[in-house]
């Protein structure tokens, strides 16, 4: 009997019922369910686990809800820098990219690195050049802008300034900032 299975995550952190509105919770659950269904459809049709995880991740990358692709957080310099990786359990081949700013779906380029190059990890401009040459969808960096993430960065910068001015005040982080894809963690 087939044991096809798909498991996903969309980030971890200080996520509590108290910090979540019913609307927000529904939005997250709907998108996670959509991602599961897309990957499941691939597996159900006899597709590979690699195809399933790539298709699943692309759904979440295209959503502003998650810190990946369209919903990516901002660097100190006000940019969105993306990382992704993929690994094939059958062959132990792997591909990854880091610090890219123009690749719409980093997971697909990570797979290209695995399947269409002799390397495992490419970074920055080189990875973007590779993606372009292999036909990945390239977007203007502004594609990744979301107001909520931008405001997160502004708030954190303001807190840093406050902390420097008043060193005894360590400031406080709300849920959006203390979530791993928020202030501290990646």
């Amino acid at each position, binding site marked *: 009997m087939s044991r096809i299975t798909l498991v996903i995550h969309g980030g971890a952190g200080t996520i509590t019922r108290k910090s979540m509105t019913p609307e927000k919770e529904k939005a997250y659950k709907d998108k996670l*369910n959509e991602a599961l269904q897309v990957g499941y459809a691939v597996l159900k049709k006899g*597709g*590979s686990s690699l195809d399933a995880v790539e298709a699943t991740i692309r759904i979440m990358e295209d959503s502003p809800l998650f810190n990946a*692709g369209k919903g990516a957080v901002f660097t100190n310099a006000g940019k969105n820098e993306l990382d992704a*990786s*993929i690994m094939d*359990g059958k062959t132990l081949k792997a591909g990854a990219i880091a610090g890219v700013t123009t690749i719409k779906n980093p997971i697909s380029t990570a797979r290209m690195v695995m399947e269409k190059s002799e390397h495992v990890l490419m970074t920055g401009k080189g990875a973007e050049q590779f993606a372009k040459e292999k036909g990945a969808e390239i977007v203007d960096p502004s594609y990744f802008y979301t107001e909520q993430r931008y405001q997160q960065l502004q708030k954190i910068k303001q807190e840093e300034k406050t902390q420097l001015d008043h060193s005894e005040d360590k400031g406080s982080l709300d849920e959006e900032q203390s979530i791993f894809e928020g202030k501290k963690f*990646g």
Partner: protein
Amino acid sequence: TVGAVALDQFGNLAAATSTGGMTNKRYGRVGDSPIIGAGTYADNQTCAVSATGHGEYFIRAVVAYDVAALMAYKGLSVKEAADEVVMKKLVKMGGEGGIIALDKNGNIAMPFNSEGMYRGYIKADGTSEVLIYK
């Protein structure tokens, strides 16, 4: 950070992770997501893993590979191995976050030591569950 692990009808495992990193990061900082063995790992003999959390700790703990290694060398189940790494080793180091892991028999583990983790699974018969909180 988002991640997915899957088992197909041929018994092949795969893992994938994608992220925007850390807000306000500088100096070209890179977390665990693109690091094979830290944030992502897959081996048909053991399991597929994708991680999310405080990347620096996940890199130092070689989290994803460590789960597979515990299964391979100590014969732990995917749940035992995942719990050992996320709930004990990482906690001891001070690293917060979680992982999803899936073995070659379709067994699942989704441990996290933070307050919540967006997560879900779907099995062969289509039964699925999406969870957020502890």
